[in-house]
């Protein structure tokens, strides 16, 4: 067991444990904080796989952006009832059975597949320059489309959420 393997399993336990809390927690604020731990451990995996830039963006965008957005959603919708809103989960057993069957099939397929792998492909080089260049060359069109997508989301969210002034 080298350090890499130990940290892999440590973060795996952290990841799955917190994900289970997100899904089954009856307290929505606790679920949101568990989601933060999940997202942070995902970032740790990116770093383990030498994807430094993706890891940093995960921290900035997911933990710093999307999670904060979700927390705002939680706070805004709970304000008028109470902070500790309790929500019941139903049909848990059948759902778990169905998804674990599908997951089992998936795991079997992962196991039986000979993934095309290159040996020793991993390097410790920084990925940011390569990624930055690709954004402005091969991925120029998706990059621009993504910016339109975000503009649409901005306009749409404002349109839906803003209060209608009575004229």
């Amino acid at each position, binding site marked *: 067991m080298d350090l890499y393997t130990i940290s892999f399993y440590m973060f795996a336990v952290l990841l799955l444990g917190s994900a289970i809390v997100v899904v089954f927690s009856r307290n929505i604020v606790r679920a949101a904080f568990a989601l933060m731990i999940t997202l942070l451990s995902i970032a740790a995996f990116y770093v383990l796989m030498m994807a430094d830039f993706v890891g940093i963006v995960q921290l900035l965008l997911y933990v710093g952006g999307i999670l904060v957005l979700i927390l705002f959603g939680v706070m805004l919708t709970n304000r008028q009832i109470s902070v500790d809103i309790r929500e019941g989960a139903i049909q848990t057993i059948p759902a778990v059975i169905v998804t674990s069957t599908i997951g089992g099939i998936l795991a079997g397929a992962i196991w039986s597949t000979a993934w095309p792998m290159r040996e020793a492909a991993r390097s410790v080089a920084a990925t940011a320059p390569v990624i930055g260049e690709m954004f402005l060359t091969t991925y120029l069109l998706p990059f621009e489309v993504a910016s339109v997508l975000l503009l649409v989301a901005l306009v749409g969210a404002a349109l839906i959420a803003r209060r*209608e002034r009575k004229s």
Partner: protein
Amino acid sequence: MVESVLQNLTYFVPETALVVTFCAVLLADVIFKGRPRIPWTIGLLGLIVAGVTAFQQTGLNRPVFDLMIVVDPFAVFFKVIVAATAILIYLMSLWSDEVKASARRMGEYAALLVSATLGMFLMAGATNLLMIVLALELTGLSSYVLSGYTKEASDSSEASLKYILFGAVSTGIMLYGISLLYGLTGATDLIGIRLALEGQAMTHTPMLLISSIMILAGFGYKISAVPFHFWTPDVYEGAPITVTAFLSVASKAAGFALMIRFLVSTATPSLGVDVMAVVQTFEWPKLIAIMSVLTMTLGNIVAIWQNNLKRLLAYSSIAHAGTMLMAVTVFSQNGVAAVLIYFVVYLFMNLGAFYLVMLVAGATGSEDIDSYKGLGHRAPLVGVSLVIFLISLTGLPPTAGFIGKLYVFSALLDAQWIWLAIVGALNSVISLYYYVRVIRNMYLRDPDSAPAPVVLTGAQTVLLMVFLVPTLVLGVYFAPLVDWAHASVALFGIR
């Protein structure tokens, strides 16, 4: 680098026009506050420019922006359909009470119609899984917001919540499939995937199957095929009627374009290779045939019980998607051409039906079938037109709907899918039942109380003719349409 971008941009005029229009509409909405007609006009002009420039691309066949997207006759055909639908919806919105009720937000409505159109244009041409996702998402986000547009109506924003939840889950499933397919092939563009699969024989078939099914789930959601249809009736009922009509034609057309392109590029014989790995390991046609039977049958049977005409048309549009899936099953040039023909026909008859439902709802305040009692005598033009649209939706001659069904069924029979053709024919009979119920109400039942009159203005009648004339003319003179459809499929690499 800059030269190649500029060169690619010359093949990207329609999409560029839409992006510019989208921004211009938003700006105009801010600058000319309180005069929603100005952004509306800019949007309409932009859509016309996009439609015309897209039509001018007929005959081109080349990939642009590093295989991200392709300009080929197939994409052009669907772009023209989408642009035409968007323009007609724009005109319909002029008389929509639901849209006018929140005139303050009409600029955003106009902008989001343009951005949805942009997403569908990209869907028609996308040849890279990444572009496919982004295009689907651009279309999706615009439609989520549009279907919640009349947020005063309580079912409208619930419809859009349901829509976005189902949409986000299906995007998630599709993305997982894409990530697995990327792992198998190391590529995300459809050509690269095909080459990788051809090179590797079949060492990983179960995974290939799982990932393809997951990706198809994303397309199935867009065309509302069973079992991914749950969102459709509620969204179609909750959304403003113009948006419903837009989604039922344009969004479906773009979804079909994507699905056919994905299946054809990755799963059918081409480039001199006899049978592709995906087809060989799994009988795709059978899976799609079963999906089409379920979609048709469910749509038709549930439509029988509907008393709201808008909801009835929603279920009937699920059934029509099933009919078109039947033609996809064939995996041949005839089959794909039949889908294209069907879409043109479907555009006019379905939009026409929705248009009349909107006008009648505007006059009587109800979409209930009961409120159509005696309508044929009160408003002869509206009554006769609605009868023609409904007959066409059933697929009876001499309307355009008959031509659409004719080509679908002849493609099926050519390919020896006899049982599927029989199921399809039985479904047409079921659909006759519920369409006739509306006609019976209009002509053979007396209204319960003194009903509001339905009077069309001159401009409204002109727009009605735009839907009505093609529905009748295409029923007798359809050769150009058929030629265009075949030409659009010819260069597509299937036999």
